[in-house]
């Protein structure tokens, strides 16, 4: 299968600042990719290039198309939520559905209505009458009702309560996702998405700091918790990162034999959040 997104030397400059610095990327179909990075790392710039919302240097094709040149054609197969609360405030929900249905051939009104039935949003509401969370629910219902091959979500659940966030991710996984589809997602709430991700991309200062699959994460990375007296010994195995918690030392290792570590203390598979912190700190030193 050919890649959904393919980038070679993708670069985005704003004047003298380089937001995205020669990124190479291949995202095959049927993946759920988490794009994770600190604020200002270039996530949004990279997403904008992919969605045809910004010009770029280097090579970038999304489903064989140049996003900057063919945005309209690309949007037949891509849908995105680029930011929270960008639905026009003056529009009625009914009108929003009407215009989306007329402009987007892949939009299913029935599916959208089914998602909306789980919320308090009604057709007669105007967007400006809805709470921030309800606007997010409406926007999510709208994009999930579009039969697209690539779904890009930039902080999709900002402003949503925890009940709806859980519900959203479970319907994303159960009702929406299949082998034909690819989901690219950025969020600060890493803990919530790590169970649904298949791939992980860390981005820092406009470059890719880590690009791996979740299976790989489990195999490569190990977290070790030891008592203070064993810390020196653990340190000699060259951990990526070290932190202290309740008097215990916690180390994170990349490609170190698990056998060897078990002898020193307790081992776990690190969480994405811990791996992220370790990678970012490691990258800085």
């Amino acid at each position, binding site marked *: 299968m050919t890649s959904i997104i393919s980038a070679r030397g993708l670069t985005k400059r*704003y004047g003298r600042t380089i937001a995205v610095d020669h990124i190479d990327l291949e995202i095959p179909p049927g993946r759920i990719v988490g794009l994770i990075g600190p604020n200002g790392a270039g996530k949004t710039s990279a997403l*904008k290039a992919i*969605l*045809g*919302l*910004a*010009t770029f240097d280097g090579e970038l094709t999304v489903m064989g198309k140049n996003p900057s040149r063919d*945005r*309209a*054609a*690309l*949007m*037949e197969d891509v*849908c*995105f*939520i*680029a*930011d929270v*609360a*960008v*639905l*026009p*405030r*003056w*529009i*009625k929900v009914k*009108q929003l559905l*009407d*215009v*989306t249905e*007329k*402009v*987007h*051939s892949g939009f299913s009104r029935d599916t959208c209505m089914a998602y909306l039935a789980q919320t308090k949003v009604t057709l007669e509401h105007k967007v400006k009458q809805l709470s921030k969370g309800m606007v997010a629910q409406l*926007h999510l219902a709208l*994009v999930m009702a579009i039969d697209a091959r690539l779904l890009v979500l930039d902080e999709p659940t900002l402003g949503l309560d925890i009940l709806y966030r859980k519900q959203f991710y479970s319907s994303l996984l159960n009702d929406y996702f299949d082998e034909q589809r690819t989901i690219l997602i950025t969020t600060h709430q890493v803990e919530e998405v790590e169970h649904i991700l298949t791939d992980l991309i860390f981005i820092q200062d406009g470059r890719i700091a880590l690009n791996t699959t979740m299976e790989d994460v489990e195999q490569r990375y190990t977290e070790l918790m030891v008592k203070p007296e064993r810390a020196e010994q653990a340190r000699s195995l060259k951990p990526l990162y070290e932190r202290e918690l309740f008097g215990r030392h916690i180390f994170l290792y990349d490609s170190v034999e698990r056998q060897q570590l078990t002898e020193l203390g307790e081992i776990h598979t690190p969480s994405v959040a811990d791996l992220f912190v370790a990678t970012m700190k490691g990258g800085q030193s």
Partner: protein
Amino acid sequence: MNRLFALIRREYWENKGAFRTTPLVIGGIYIAFLLMSIFTTAHFDNEMYTFREAIRLLAEQPTEFRSTHGLEVLLGSSLFFTIVLAFVVFFYLLGALYDDRKDRSILFWKSLPASDTLTIASKLLTAMFLAPLMFWIVIVLTQIIMAIIASLMVISVGENPWTLFLSVINPFEAWSMLLVSYLASSIWFLPMYGWLLLVSSFAPRIPLLFAVLPPVVFAILQVWIRFLETFTFNASLFGLIGKWVANSPAILTVQVHDGEGTLALGGPLTDDFDHAVSLMNILDRLFSVQMLGGLIVAAVFLAGALWFRHRATES
């Protein structure tokens, strides 16, 4: 095509107040004034004597007189609508590519498979055709209602409205002339529409300022430099824009001939075109060298608007 219509309908929804409510309010004002004047007359004029006399005098006039003046009344009463329409279109275009950048809903609109060209086309067509059409419909409705009220008045004083004016005046002539003049004006003013869309596509804030200030500064510099060179005040951008309005195919003013006023296209201050209201004179403007130049200017402005629209989500 379906997409284009969907986008135009979206423009209508967003601007219902400007495109529908505004002309309805003006129509309401016309009708209210008519009713008020009737009540005033009835209040002060015992037995409606003056009104009766006026109607009787009118009935004595030749048919020709009643027909031409009736037509003038129908066309002339559109004037207030036309001026408000110009304001509505002006502010609509200024906001057309600005408002969604300001409230960031552009990020939603750009997630739909509609190209920037189609989006700009939908906004331009809305200004050119939807807005004038809405106003035109309300004008026709207002005039029908006013004709009914006037007929009832005439009946009430014992005259026959059918022979007096209903059968004499051909309203369709006035209405079609008005519609043609509106549509022709939409084409005639394309350079201005293009400029407003261009400003709307890039203005970081207060598009009104960006729309008005550059031409004003440019014109002042032009006048000043000309004055330094020749010690005379020569044609400037102001003059050009003024002339453009004066030459327009919109029914805007009254010109006086032999002590008698008739409606005129644009303002009868220029002699580039014949200002008498007629289909030929309207077409004459559309197929002129000036129009060709205007279309080229409009194309440049619109291309600029498209360029900015494409980059509107950069930062």
